[in-house]
């Protein structure tokens, strides 16, 4: 603790010391921020964009599209989740682990985060159902449908 010595020094130099501290801290934080920003930027692509850009296997990306009807399958024992997502042009097979989110449905939007494997199948580390922003007008007499397919 060198406070006693420092406080007896002339004011200008302690001010300068503070300034240097602050600048150092600023540079450190800026470095930390910029470095982490570039390493954690995850691109958000459609299946077609991902195909056109030839995204290398292993690069973390997010894919957005609609769940292709008839493809959503969940095996409860192995907890394997398989489905296809599509942007209308390109289909991508997605393989995930764990139960599908409650909001995930066929023909509804989904965003998957993960990476392509060498086999071209997308390994999803997270699956997010993209819920619609506006609710459709209610249809009279409609009962809620239960269950995950």
């Amino acid at each position, binding site marked *: 603790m060198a406070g006693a010595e420092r*406080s007896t020094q002339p004011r200008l130099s302690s001010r300068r010391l503070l300034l240097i501290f602050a600048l150092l801290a600023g540079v450190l*934080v800026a470095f930390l921020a910029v470095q*982490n*920003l570039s390493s954690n930027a*995850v691109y958000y692509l459609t299946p077609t964009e991902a195909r056109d850009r030839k995204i290398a296997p292993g690069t973390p990306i997010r894919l957005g599209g609609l769940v292709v009807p008839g493809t959503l399958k969940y095996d409860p024992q192995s907890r394997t989740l398989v489905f296809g997502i599509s942007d209308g042009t390109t289909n991508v097979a997605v393989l995930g682990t764990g*139960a599908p989110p409650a909001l995930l449905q066929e023909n509804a939007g989904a965003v998957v985060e993960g990476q392509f494997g060498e086999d071209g199948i997308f390994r999803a580390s997270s699956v997010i159902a993209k819920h619609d922003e506006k609710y*459709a007008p209610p249809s009279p007499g409609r009962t*809620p449908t239960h269950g995950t397919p």
Partner: protein
Amino acid sequence: MSWADFGSGALRAALPVAIWGCGAAIYAASKRDGRALASARWSALLALVLVVLAVLAMEGALVSHDFTIQYVAENNARATPLFFTVISLWAALAGSILLWTLVLAGATAYVAWRGTRELPRLGTTALAVLLGMVSFFLLLVTTPAADPFVRIDPPLDGNGPNPLLQNHPLMALHPPLLYLGYVLFSVPFAYAIASLVLGEGGDRWLVATRRFALVSWGLLGVGIVAGSWWSYAVLGWGGYWAWDPVENAAIMPWLVATAYLHSVMVEEKRRLLRSWNLSLVIATFALTILGTFLTRSGVVNSVHSFTQSAIGPLLLGYLVVILVLSVGLLLWRLPMLSDRGGVGAPLSREAIFLFQNVVFVAATLTVLLGTLYPIIAEAISGQQLSIGRPYFDRVEVPLALALLFLMGIGPQLPWHGAPRATLERQFTVPIVAAAGGALVAVLAGINGAFAVLTYALAAFVAATVVQEFARGMRARQVLHGEGRATALANLLRRSGRRYGGYIVHLGIVVIAVAVATSQAGTVQLEKTISTGQSAQVGPYTVTLTALRDATEPQRDLLVADLSVTGNGANEQLHPALVFYPNSTQAVGSPGIAAGARDDIYTILAAYDSRAHAWATIRVLVIPLVSWLWLGGLVVGIGAVIAALPQPKRRTVAERVAPLAVGTSAK
């Protein structure tokens, strides 16, 4: 007359009143005209009354299910319980802006009738600024972008509130707290602008609005914690903070406001940092508007995207005007804001506060960078991307630890600088406590260097606070012959600002420990089990006893009945999937057994829809997470104690006589 006519009539009448009042206040401030001031005052009050009437009309429409109003049709249904009907006022954009307008009009009326009496010229100028803002918000709620009373052809039944918003009573608390916090900061901002306009070099604006800033800050802080609690209890992912843009929008103004509350003391005690404090107030206010813009315009892709609307350009315009005007004013007045003297030694309270300010601003800027970067990148390159959570964790956690460290040092140092003896006296016990904290963390099996460091720093800060309380109480016991309890009560009452602040620090310590422990020590398991089977998670055994359907008036549920035993627990939990008739989505509703040691958090992830024979459940054992909400409460209590009016200082003669009852507070 319908609710819609009544409500929209009230808002349309309030707009010219507010504009007139703004003009009258400007005239009153520049000509020192008493009649114009009276006119401005009555305008502010009348505008408030009209907005209150509009809010009542909206509530009337909601409660009576008047589906001729689009907002009611979209956010209410006949089966919606009364409680959620009433709080549907803030379930969507237009109602939220109406609530915002109400709070702003209330604060404006308060300034009109109290503030202009305390400081006539400054208060009147601030009133003009506030009435200008009220006018803007009234303009918003009377344009199609955010008109809450737009009429439609009535459907037979409404959509009901967003399922996520009618699943938990915390929804009644969290948005209004945030709005109050956001909006009340308009008052310090208005006074700061008034001070710049009038060219006052002093800190009168700051003293006059100290309490407003503190209350606003406290509400925002408690609102943020309540929001994370809501997220935890409703969204069913087992977490409470995701660095979602909506969360960032709330925490950024809170961070800058925290910096401001501390640097204010430097200005009061040392007459330093004047332009800095003005900048912080402007930045806080601008961030509240930016937050509203980000969350309400749908510019950011986020789970809160239900609040998209055409309001974006208007809010952005408002933000730009505010920034240009206030920064321009600040630059114009900069010459008269120069500080006298400088910061003393590096180990003085002002130096630590300054350093703390730098860290708070750095934290804000890095959150801002991570939040805006995707938008900027998309605007420039057309490429959509997102910034992953690790960015925020890696950048903000070290900054938070630095702040925790400074929180233990700053209040312990005297102004101007400390001699060595003082340092030893102040820091011996806390340093020993820090070592003890680290030891406890290691013995308790806490993983991760950051988590152990958090424990050490938390113990360090807690020890400084306890030490301060002990010394303060001992001083009162010796000087006034008070008992322990009386000494504590008097300490809080007479020096509430200081000791309330220490209580806030204690709350932050509790939050830090809760966050570090829950992040580092969560155990989780996802497993598919048949009814009657069990799963082992940490020390607990979770048994699926039944899967059953349940029906409530406004919704259907599929419930998993779980029994949790082991480690002294015997709990029945009921995680469910909830189906609302007007929504195609099922909403997960977690089953939580909250405890002081840990929470058992269960989620029904999937189930056998045919025979109800199996379910995939996710179980998380999250240590100490309940202490996070408790820490938020402690922060709130500390803020209240700090904001309460302190009794006037008594004369020496009075102080010598050990009277139990002080002079009555004003």
